[in-house]
């Protein structure tokens, strides 16, 4: 194998494993020394030199990555996180989305409590409802708000927004309602937005917005020309996201156009090459330099270098060298999904397209010619897609075949129209008429395809070891290697063994996950046979009047990640929106077999709507009797308690407190480990609960009643329950100021560990009958 590939692979491995290999860097130094020693004494054998080189590459990756890792500087805005400030800075980057615009701001000044601080750091700023074109890169603006740390993976997700931003050197986030424009961008900085606007303005005036944006994104990418969210969703469901991103195709187009024109004019080669390279990098700047374009531009530059020197560059070394150069400049790019996907797809095109095409030679030529590259690119992207998203669109093949035709045509038309705009608006309009037809045809075809049942399959994302296995198999099946059949067979064999081993490694008789859903409750109980959900977090109204809920935001993604397709039992403690809100989305997406709720839960229209919706989906709604028992298996049982009822005579008159106190309290008993889910009961409910005949209050893990409010967790209750772990399910900075510090202190003083979902994220308790393990999503 080419040493370049091996070195690049070793370097990439070093970057990926940098954090775990860092403590044993001396091993690699020793390996280098060993290799050099072997080389000096046995010069005929190249192994010594290869060993030294590979170790050097790994060591470089291991050492260079932390050095290039962005860290907050002394005057970074992140030192003011949690404080309300007035901040001014220059816009460095902009991303338009449907509802808001996301900016990267180079902070300059920050005033807090009348004190002025000078800063130099980046900040991610979200602004709502700014019309397209009102702000430009390079403008200086002033905003006010509270600086926040970007959110971490709250519920054991694989993607952490905080890490994602930190890789770009952004450590602070700010959401502002309004901004003040201090000064417009000056001179040199304005040409980018001007050119962009010049290219895109014509589209907007001649076409409907959706068509104009899709055309714009075909030439300049989605970051510059945002596509309406429903169109984007359609594209995602069809496996066509890559169409909206700029990639090698557009870069190639720009490069070849320049080459062709200047070659015809008879210019010298070196001059043409330099000109083409310059225009390629100008194009990169226009698109806002996403990683995929950067990769393509790098390859194009290498190709032009070869062109100037009368050398033909083969594709694979060019790609590998381009990737290596980018990674040497900034190792963090390897974690950029766009970069990884673009590299893998190109790699697939280069190594497997030809092979697949010959395999498919039985088909008609036009079909095999289109299918070969398509399948090759998709095959190499799939494992990574399965690892991160666990999604697959079975329509990708027909959708991509159709899209391939349309996008090529549309890109040419859009490019022609953009250039014609320079001459006359009339000519641009003339070109845009057929473009508009084709675009609307394309969009409505996509709409039609999405109507097919279940275009997108979601499943449990694959494990890391399977990702590695899949790429090993792919690499082996398209590359020559010693012992190839044995190795492929061995890899295929080890997959089921590995999955069985992993299942054994992670087996957990009763797993209880207290999810982090903001201000509200949601707990998932998993036993080998059942899935039980207690409460489902809040529901709220968005700025545009639509409802959003924790079910869609947190619980459904978690269910997908855990590979859960059905909820056997859903339990509602009481009918407050912060407990049942998420059931609206869950009922739509996942079948719920039974729904348990106390009968006397008031008649708010929203709650009745939920019950109606549940029965429509075939869910059985059950009211439990006080003290009733449900055996999950021979060692595990659930007990339902409702100490206070609406027909009790002496009851405090306030309705809201009533409902809290009438919460269903649930005990989950697994041998010696006991869980108590106390709903929102308050002092009265606690007293009544303790007085229930047959109620054994002791619990190992307690879901603290009423989000740790000061009206609950009375001393009598605490001493009766004696929890070892107390879990407080609260949202960050909630308006009720839950939990009360006195309550937290009271638990801690009596030797109970307190876990807050706003600080620790989701908390997962795995019970093994006599012992238990606790894991929180965010390590403190």
């Amino acid at each position, binding site marked *: 194998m080419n040493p370049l590939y091996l070195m690049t692979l070793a370097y990439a491995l070093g970057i990926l494993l940098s954090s*775990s290999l860092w403590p044993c860097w001396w091993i690699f130094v020793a390996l280098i020394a060993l290799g050099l020693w072997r080389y000096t004494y046995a010069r005929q054998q190249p192994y010594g030199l290869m060993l030294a080189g590979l170790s050097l590459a790994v060591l470089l990756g291991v050492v260079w990555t932390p050095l290039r890792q962005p860290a907050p500087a002394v005057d970074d805005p992140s030192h003011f996180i949690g404080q309300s400030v007035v901040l001014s800075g220059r816009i460095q980057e902009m991303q338009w989305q449907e509802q808001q615009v996301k900016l990267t701001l180079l902070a300059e000044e920050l005033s807090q409590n009348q004190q002025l601080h000078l800063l130099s750091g980046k900040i991610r700023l979200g602004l709502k409802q700014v019309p397209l074109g009102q702000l430009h890169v390079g403008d200086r603006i002033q905003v006010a708000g509270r600086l926040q740390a970007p959110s971490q993976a709250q519920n054991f997700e694989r993607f952490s927004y905080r890490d994602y931003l930190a890789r770009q050197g952004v450590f602070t986030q700010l959401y502002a309602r309004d901004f003040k424009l201090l000064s417009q961008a000056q001179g040199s900085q304005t040409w980018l937005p001007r050119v962009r606007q010049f290219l895109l303005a014509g589209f907007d005036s001649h076409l409907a917005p959706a068509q104009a944006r899709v055309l714009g994104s075909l030439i300049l990418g989605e970051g510059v020309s945002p596509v309406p969210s429903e169109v984007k969703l359609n594209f995602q469901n069809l496996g066509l996201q890559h169409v909206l991103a700029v990639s090698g195709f557009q870069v190639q187009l720009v490069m070849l156009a320049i080459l062709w024109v200047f070659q015809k004019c008879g210019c010298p080669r070196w001059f043409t090459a330099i000109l083409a390279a310059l225009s390629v990098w100008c194009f990169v700047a226009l698109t806002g330099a996403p990683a995929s374009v950067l990769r393509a531009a790098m390859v194009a530059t290498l190709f032009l270098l070869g062109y100037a020197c009368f050398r033909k560059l083969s594709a694979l070394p060019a790609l590998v060298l381009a990737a290596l150069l980018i990674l040497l400049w900034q190792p963090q790019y390897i974690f950029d999904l766009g970069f990884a996907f673009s590299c893998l797809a190109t790699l697939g095109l280069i190594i497997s397209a030809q092979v697949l095409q010959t395999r498919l030679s039985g088909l008609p030529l036009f079909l095999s010619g289109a299918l070969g590259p398509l399948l090759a690119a998709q095959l190499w992207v799939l494992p990574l897609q399965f690892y991160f998203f666990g999604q697959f669109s079975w329509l990708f093949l027909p959708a991509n075949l159709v899209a391939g035709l349309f996008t090529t045509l549309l890109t040419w038309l859009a490019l022609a129209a953009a250039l014609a705009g320079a001459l006359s608006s009339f000519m641009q309009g003339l070109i845009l008429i057929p473009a508009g037809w084709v675009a609307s045809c394309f969009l409505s075809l996509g709409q039609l395809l999405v109507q097919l049942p279940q275009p997108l399959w979601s499943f449990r994302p694959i494990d890391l070891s399977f990702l590695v296995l899949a790429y090993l198999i792919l690499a082996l099946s398209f590359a020559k290697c010693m012992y190839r059949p044995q190795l492929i067979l*061995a890899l295929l064999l080890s997959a089921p063994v590995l999955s069985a081993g992993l299942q054994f490694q992670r087996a957990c008789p009763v797993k209880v996950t207290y999810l982090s859903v903001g201000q509200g409750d949601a707990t998932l109980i998993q036993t080998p046979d059942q899935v039980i959900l207690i409460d489902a977090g809040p529901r709220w109204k968005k700025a545009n009047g639509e409802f959003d809920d924790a079910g869609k935001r947190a619980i459904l993604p978690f269910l997908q990640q855990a590979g859960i397709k059905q909820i056997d039992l859903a339990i509602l403690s009481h009918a407050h929106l912060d407990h049942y809100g998420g059931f609206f989305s869950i009922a739509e997406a996942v079948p719920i077999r039974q729904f348990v709720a106390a009968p006397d839960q008031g008649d708010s229209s929203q709650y009745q709507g939920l019950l109606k919706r549940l029965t429509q989906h075939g869910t059985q709604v059950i009211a439990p009797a006080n003290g009733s028992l449900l055996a999950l298996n021979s060692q595990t049982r659930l007990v339902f308690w409702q100490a206070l009822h609406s027909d009790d005579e002496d009851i405090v008159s306030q309705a809201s407190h009533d409902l809290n106190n009438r919460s269903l309290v649930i005990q989950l008993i697994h041998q010696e480990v006991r869980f108590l889910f106390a709903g929102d009961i308050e002092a009265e409910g606690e007293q009544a609960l303790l007085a229930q005949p047959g109620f054994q209050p002791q619990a190992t893990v307690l879901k603290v009643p009423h989000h740790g409010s000061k*009206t609950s967790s009375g001393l009598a209750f605490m*001493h009766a329950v004696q929890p*070892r772990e107390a879990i407080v399910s609260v949202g960050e900075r909630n308006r009720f100021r839950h939990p009360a510090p006195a309550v937290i202190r009271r638990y801690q003083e009596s030797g109970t560990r307190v876990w807050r979902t706003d600080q620790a994220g989701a908390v997962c308790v795995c019970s093994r009958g006599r012992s238990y393990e*606790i894991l929180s999503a965010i390590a403190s």
Partner: protein
Amino acid sequence: MYTRFICMTLSFSALFTSLGLGLEYLYSPKPLLIAEAHAKSETAPSTVTQPLTQVLITGAVNKPGLYELPLGSRLDDLISLAMGLSPSADLSPADLLRRIEPGEVVHVQAKTTVAIKPPKGKAQSSSKTQPTKKIQIRTAGLNELTQLPGIGPALAKRILDYRQAHPFQRLEDMLQVKGIGPKTFAKMKGQLSL
């Protein structure tokens, strides 16, 4: 020939499996804590090690009465057992932190200054429990009746309906109204007159 092929495949496969398991072990999140289900007696508080004492609380709290508390509890804890302070309570935050003596009688003072505005919300419900003058059940209207403890608008309406048909002769006639049991009656008896 085939034996060699199979042996090789199997050994490669074993190698890959163990590598995969090792990788997963390295990169899967480790539990922060592994603990036995039963607490040892010195770490967790129990009722045995903390003797209880009974304390009487009276005055401006929502539920005055006799409560049982562990020795060394703060006044704050006692008040939370007594459903919190009523709005008229006059207590400084420093008082709340003081420890309770065993067998103590706590009296929470009410504010002496007269509030100019009638207190809203919760305050109304607390004033319900202590009306100043007795209610004449033969003549009282809907509003007056609802001021009685345990009687809401629905029950008051029912009392009025019942009164139309059968005028009250004695206080105990109230028991005939559907929804008023001996317990409710006993609570409001002191505030009734004919």
